């Protein structure tokens, strides 16, 4: 057996386990099980089940198309406006779900944290998996709309996974910060919905970021700008052209968030069981 062999282990104050990353790898099955649990119970005792993953983006899509496309009359290039919006909604929904799941994950798993040892990183990481399932469902919606408008993506679609990763890393980086902070300060529970609400309008979800030519440099400091632009570029045949400099800024910001999030999480992890 021996999935977890520990030849000799020393427990001491301030001694961050030197085997942390190896431990994380050993506990990968637990990560899978926790993700599987979350997915499994997500739509238990609901009548519509996984359809809920479809209803929310569909309604948002209709509202945004109406507000930004019809009322504000924003340009969409030669792409149907709903497709433009959906390509923004896809990464945003992925980010929003992954971020809010990760933020609440530690407190939601208090009973595990106070009773069993495992690398705590597993908890926020596994919580992100559910978001991927919903994401896959919305991809189906996109496929249907593409068929409807007879719009076929080209080779660029093959690069889409890179931007999915960028979105997830952004969500994990911010999620790690928030979940570790929430363990000590429950105030941050109220910050998460607020951040998501503001972020939805600060990110180019309902419109194309080409509408702000002068500000794109500053705008790209929001890593989701790079992710959303990337999604559109991949799915809409490179339609709003991708600016490498702006993309680099977004990627760098995402990396910074992830690195600092990891640092803060690891820094506070040792005290989780005492204060949660």
């Amino acid at each position: 057996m021996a999935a977890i062999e520990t030849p000799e282990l020393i427990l001491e104050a301030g001694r961050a386990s030197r085997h942390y990353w190896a431990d994380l790898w050993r506990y990968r099955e637990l990560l899978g099980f926790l993700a599987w649990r979350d997915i499994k119970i997500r739509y238990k005792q609901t009548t519509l089940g996984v359809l809920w993953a479809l209803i929310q983006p569909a309604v948002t899509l209709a509202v945004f198309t109406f507000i930004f496309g019809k009322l504000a009359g924003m340009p969409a290039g030669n792409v149907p406006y709903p497709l433009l919006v959906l390509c923004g909604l896809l990464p945003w929904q992925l980010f929003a779900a992954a971020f809010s799941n990760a933020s609440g994950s530690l407190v939601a798993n208090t009973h595990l944290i106070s009773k069993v040892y495992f690398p705590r990183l597993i908890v926020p990481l596994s919580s992100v998996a559910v978001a991927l399932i919903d994401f896959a469902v919305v991809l189906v919606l996109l496929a249907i709309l593409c068929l409807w408008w007879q719009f076929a993506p080209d080779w660029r679609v093959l690069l889409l996974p890179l931007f999915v990763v960028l979105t997830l890393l952004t969500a994990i980086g911010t999620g790690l910060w928030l979940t570790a902070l929430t363990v000590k300060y429950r105030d941050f529970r109220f910050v998460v919905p607020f951040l998501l609400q503001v972020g939805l309008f600060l990110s180019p979800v309902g419109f194309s970021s080409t509408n702000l030519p002068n500000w794109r440099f500053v705008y790209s400091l929001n890593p989701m700008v790079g992710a959303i632009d990337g999604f559109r570029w991949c799915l809409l045949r490179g339609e709003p052209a991708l600016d490498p400099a702006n993309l680099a800024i977004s990627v760098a910001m995402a990396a910074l968030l992830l690195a600092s999030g990891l640092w803060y999480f690891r820094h506070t992890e040792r005290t989780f069981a005492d204060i949660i």
Partner: protein
Amino acid sequence: MSSPVISVSGLGKRYYLSHEKRQDTLRDSLTQQFRQLGRRLTGAATEPEGEEFWALRDVSFDVQQGDVIGIIGRNGAGKSTLLKILSRITEPTTGRVRLRGRIASLLEVGTGFHPELSGRENIFLNGAILGMSRAEIARKFDEIVAFAEVERFLDTPVKHYSSGMYVRLAFAVAAHLEPEILIVDEVLAVGDAAFQKKCLGKMQAVSRSDGRTVLFVSHNLQSIRQLCHSAVLLAGGQVQTSGPCARVLEFYQHGLAGPVVHVVPPPSADLLHCGYVTSVSVETLEGKPTSVFDVGQPWRIRVGFRIAKAQDQFVIAVGLLSPDGSPVQTSWFPPRNLAPGDYEAAFIQDKVILEAGSYTTVVGLSSHGHAFQQFQSERLDISGETVVGTYVCASSGVGVVLNSMRQELRKIP
């Protein structure tokens, strides 16, 4: 002798108790920070945050491979903290622990069980949480199901299980862990008597095979004696004594384990003007405070209380909760009017005696049928070690109250 598998030296764990002012909201922390900044600027000394409390202090002991060691002590002696450190849930403040071997801890049965998932799914989930690999769980799956006796309900969500089935399933998963070092908190105190016996048997089997090392915490002195070779007695976060099981148990049972501290909560502002309990003492009829009794031994509870304002229809009552938390018995004085002053009430038990186990005392004050103070106080351990008088067996498994009925036997002519 080979080097120990567990070596604990100078272990300490400090907590900060923050009275009244909670510091776990951001605002509190921010105002605290500002205040400290202000003090630092004005040159005043910084105040420590809250009162310091050492749950463990300078604890050292070694455990050899194959040892089954019992950790005993009163509530608040630091047993749980020690287990939490050994199972890596929390970090020590001082000292160090060296562990050699794969370790698994069982601080609770059914950790991570999800009510919406089926029995089958929960076996895998719980197994993974306890550190088993998927292949390992799959291999032992049938054994686990058979041990838990839940074959028919494997695909039912566990929220529909009876509490007995739930506990059986949870323990069954845990019982099939195969670590080199097993840490077990008081998990045997669940389930019915028959199942407890089965669990104890399983624990014995686990510890006797393969030279596995077991650390075992329990309030049930009988099971400690049955399972353990040696024991460590903790009191006030320190090791009081350690060594062969029988000697440590004797030390504990004869009240040598330090002064008996009774839990009496400080009265709230309302109670100060009304009336409140000042002391609780569980003791022998000779007045020797202790919390461990043999089956058959008489005992009493003395409750001191202060009446601040004259009380009409005043009642003082005590009760006992069984190890699983259900109320077993209660006694109260008939309602009477009391003038302000200090009083002492004694409740004496010399006939009915309870089955071996760990009970909790409850004390309550009321007036006109309205309870104004009620709290759980000291734990009371009734040991099955020795038996006083005519009680033959200490734990019957079929009744908490032993031999309280008058008996008659006659030969029918």
